[in-house]
Structure formats: structure tokens, C-alpha cells
């Protein structure tokens, strides 16, 4: 079973994140960049499937040079090899354009199963699995909290607010995962040392047979026109307890439509 995991490097959601006022794109250079948290679950799931079914796990990343850190981490968790699509022309691409790059890269790989996180913490669009599925004409199983692969089928429990749907599709298919699906492993010492020696193939747009005009900020299908910081926190409301503190507190929560 050949599994490809889509991995994105994002600014750490735990520290301050910014847009670059020069072109309204995510400020990646100044950020603390980490592997997208949800992707760690997809990687773990890929490793679990591989360990059961055999085969190889390939990590696929589209991103700047610095994304090699995210690739190393995925390899140190146990993925077998990686493909890194890096090309200056890709900077500022929208989701639709990026999905074209990912699909082109996937077409140069052998895959039975494509896994990815259900969302990235930077843009939170959650559209990539659908876009890639459409471009490759393969089924999409999104938002899995459980995955089984057998008899040429992928079966998932698609997480919903109230429970789950049981959904299945023939392979090859793309599956996106939530953080309920597993507990990602820590890269072990051995894994970290082994990652150094694993193959990472770098590809440019030309390698993928793509035209630079099909990507990039100038040709994006959507653009961030403007942005503003979160308004500063206002003065808090002080509730003085004169025996009716609990009531006042509940009234406040009700007025804010919290309860």
C-alpha cells in the first residue's frame, strides 16, 4: 500500500501570528513555523496503516525552503520518504492554485491512499481534500475519526457534532483526519537519527510540468484585500456581589448570549 500524506508547515498557533502588510499573505519568515497540528494525526494514521498493510509512506509538502523542518519531523516520526515542491513562483498562491500543484505532484507518485489533516491552523479553509479529489477524480472521505482499509476500500467514521457517519470509498481515495483519530507518536531518538538519511526529492513547477502563470499571488483566484488586528480588549465588567452575585453573573452571560 502506497500512502501519501499531505503536510503543510504553518506558523505556530501557540504564538503570535501575522499577515505581511506588504502583500497580505501569511508572514512565514518571521513566524515560529511548525508542522500543521492536524497533519501529525494524518501522518500517524498513515504509519498505522502502513504498519498493518505494508508499503511506504511518502510525505508531500508544497512550501518554501524552510518547510524542510516540517518534512524532517514527519520523517522522524517514521515516514519513509518525502517530496518537497518548492518554487518562488508559488508564493501567495490561493487554495485552488495550490491544489493544482499538489495534484500534479501526486500524479508523479504512486498512491493508493492520500491522507491529510482536516484543516490547517493558518487559513482554516478545510477545502484541500475536496479540491485535490476533484482534480484527480478520486473519492474524498473527509473528517475521519476512524479509518480502516480492507479489500480495496477505505472506510471511515466521519465525525459530526452528534456522532458519526459510516462512509466508504474504493481506493485510491483521499481521507482527511481530525485529532480524534489517534495519538501521534513522539519522534524517537532512532527516528530522528534515521530521518537524516531518508530521501527528500525537491521538485520545481517545471519538474511538475506546470506553468508559473498558473500559480502565485498575481493569478490567485482569491486575494486578501485588507485585514485588521483584533480590537483591543475593552474594560471588563465587574460584578459586585450584594447577595445577588450569582443572578447578576447569569444575567451577564445571558446578555452576551453565552447561556
Amino acid at each position, binding site marked *: 500500500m502506497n500512502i501519501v500524506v499531505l503536510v503543510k508547515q504553518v506558523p505556530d498557533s501557540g504564538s503570535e501570528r501575522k499577515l505581511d502588510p506588504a502583500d497580505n499573505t501569511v508572514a512565514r519568515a518571521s513566524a515560529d513555523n511548525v508542522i500543521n497540528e492536524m497533519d501529525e494525526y494524518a501522518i500517524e494514521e498513515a504509519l498505522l496503516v502502513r504498519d498493518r498493510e505494508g508499503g511506504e509512506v511518502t510525505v508531500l509538502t508544497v512550501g518554501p525552503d524552510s518547510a524542510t523542518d516540517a518534512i*524532517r*519531523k514527519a520523517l*522522524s516520526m517514521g515516514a519513509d520518504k518525502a517530496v518537497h515542491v518548492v518554487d518562488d513562483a508559488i508564493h501567495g498562491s490561493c487554495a485552488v492554485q495550490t491544489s493544482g500543484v499538489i495534484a500534479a505532484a501526486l500524479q508523479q507518485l504512486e498512491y493508493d491512499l492520500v491522507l491529510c489533516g482536516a484543516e490547517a491552523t493558518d487559513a482554516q479553509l478545510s477545502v484541500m481534500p475536496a479540491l485535490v479529489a476533484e482534480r484527480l477524480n478520486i473519492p474524498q472521505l473527509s473528517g475521519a475519526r476512524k479509518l480502516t482499509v480492507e479489500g480495496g476500500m477505505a472506510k471511515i467514521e466521519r465525525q459530526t457534532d452528534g456522532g458519526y457517519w459510516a462512509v466508504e470509498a474504493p481506493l485510491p481515495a483521499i481521507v482527511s483526519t481530525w485529532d480524534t483519530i489517534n495519538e501521534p*507518536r*513522539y*519522534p*524517537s*531518538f*532512532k*527516528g*530522528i*537519527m534515521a530521518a*537524516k538519511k531518508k530521501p527528500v526529492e525537491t521538485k520545481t513547477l517545471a519538474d511538475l510540468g506546470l506553468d508559473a502563470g498558473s500559480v502565485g499571488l498575481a493569478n490567485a483566484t482569491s486575494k486578501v484585500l485588507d485585514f485588521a488586528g483584533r480590537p483591543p480588549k475593552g474594560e471588563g465588567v465587574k460584578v459586585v456581589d450584594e447577595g445577588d452575585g450569582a443572578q447578576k453573573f447569569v444575567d451577564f452571560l445571558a446578555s452576551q448570549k453565552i447561556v
Partner: protein
Amino acid sequence: MSTWDTDERTALRASVRRFAEAEIVPNLGAWEAAGALPLELHRKAARAGLLGVGFPESAGGQGGTPIDTWVIAEELIQAGGSSGLVAALFTHGIGLPHLIEAGDPALIEKVAKPVLAGERIVSLAVTEPDGGSDVAGLTTRAVRDGDEYVVTGAKLYITSATRADFFTVAVRTGGDGAGGISLLLLERGMPGLTVSAPLQKMGWLCSDTAELTSDGVRVPVGNLIGTENEGFYAIMGQFAAERLSLAVQAYATAQRCLDLTLAWVRERKTFGRPLSSRQVVQHRVAEMARQTDVARTYTRAVIDDWQAGEDVFRQVAMAKNTAVAACDFVVDNAVQLFGGMGYMRETEVERHYRDSRILGIGGGTNEIMTEIVAKLLLA
């Protein structure tokens, strides 16, 4: 970038920190109350690939050097663990090396592999009631009888003994002095071998410690670790690693207490101002930082030289005393700056204050380290 902060070791630190935050910090208080670590933690640490670092893959380890092991120890302590935790979870760090170095495949299969898989625990038993500093004077006897040794004697202050399945025990097989000592593997359940109730200690509360008594324990000769009567040299061969390990724990504990104190003095207000606005407090934390930095820098330099194959016996003794002195100073001042809070069990610096007291006693006391330095200087 130093050998301690390569990309790989930075990644290792991140894994260790995650492990500490998820598995250790929330439970350490309960383990201290229970007086021991659960075996499950050993299993989890093995699965996370931490337990076997520094041991060869052929013995069930993960490979890597002592520096990798100490990167783990530093990070475990600096993420909210403790030297007591390191002593208990990594008792095999002192219990296994002789056995692995000796290279007997049967013993490696039986002991090293399950221990490094987190399924079994091994202790090292050298110290005796009549003396720990004078290793060459130990009196536990092992008399050869056919293809067995008959072992009689007592061992005191043995880390992890109440949980251990295996004991690497220093015994006298020959005449007096260093030349008559051997290492024997004793096993839980051997008739005549008893382990006392846990000893009640000042610190290292999550690390169980006990007395081990052998009364005519019959041990197959196959359990001899290394060569008969060369046990003292095997023990000596591990002195550097054991002492440096304690030095690392000392400066890491100091660093942790410094970090906790810096956060505290910024937050705590007296007389309407943060403690950090007072010059006496500022100078005190500056001194804490200076001593911590010097201890770490010196210890790591000695470790790097040791790894490069240089003779650093004297420097190792100086590093241990330097790091222990820094740690003593820092934990004492941390508790002081925390005021009444520093005296409370719920406060982390209080644990480090108690835990660190052993660092200048175990693995060769401060005085013995100074003896070594003096002897080598004047030799």
C-alpha cells in the same frame, strides 16, 4: 551551535519535553506520594524511544552517545521532572553498562533487552552499611561452590530495589582490596535474597530506595558479569559516566529553579512592587544565573573532552563539585525568594531543594571528589 544543540538533539529535546509534559508532570506528585514510579512509565518511555538511548541496538538500545542520554535528562528536569525521577526511571543507566560492556549474549538477552523495553528493572548494588565511599573495602562475600557462587552480605541505599527484577551486585570473590571484587547478577526470587521495605528519605520521593540482604544466595556462575576479580575496574570504568550524569542533573535542576524563580519574582509583589524591581533580588537572580551557566558550560566542556577520548578523571570530579555547588546555591535561593511558598510541598522548587541534596553525596561525595582532585594535582 554546540554538540548539545544540533538539529537532531533539538528535535530530541522537543520529543522529551512533550513526553514530560504529557506523561510525567501531571503525575509526579502522585508518584512521590506513592514512593515509586509505576512500571507503566518505563514501558511508555521505552515506546517513546527514550529508555534505550545511549545503549547499543544489539543490546536492545536505541544507539546514540552519553550526550544524547544527558540531553534527555536535562530536558526531563527542565520541563518539570526532577532528579529523583531521572534516578528512578533511568536506574538502568547505572545498572546495565557493566553487563553490556561484558558482552555475554545470554545476560544481554535475559536482562538488557527486557530492561530497555521497559518490562523489567535493574538496580546497581555497591554501597554497604559499613561504607559507600570506600568501594574497595566492601565485604559482601561470594564463595564459589561447584558451578554456583554463595553470596552473603548486605547492600544499603539501593535505588529502585523494591521494584527491581535484577541486581548488579558488587561482591568479594577474592582477597582484600580492589583486586578481589566481582560483579554478580542476582535475581528477585532467588532463595535467601530479601529486599527491605522502602527507606524513608529526605528527597527523591518518587524513587524507591531499599536495603538488599543476601543470606547464602546461590547464584549460577553464568551470572558473573565480566571477569572474576576485575569488578572494581568495571565499576571504575563507569565512574566518569555516573559522576557526569549527576553533574548534568545538578545544573539542569539549577536551570529549572532559575526559570521558576525568574517567573516568580516578576509576578510576586511586596510593598506594592514586583520583587524583580528590588536590587537585592536582581543581584541574587543574576548570581543564580551565573553559577548555573558556569556549571553547565564547564560540565559540558568536560563531557566533550571525555567523549573525545581525553583523560579527564580530575576534571570530572571538579565538574561534579562545581555543578553540585551551583545547584545547592540556586535551589536554596529559589526557596528563599519564594518566601513561605518556597517551603510548601505544592511548590516545585521545594521538591528540587530536597532532591538535590543527594547530588553531593551519591556517586562519590563532594569530599571524595576533592580528594581525587588533590591527589591527582599533587601526584
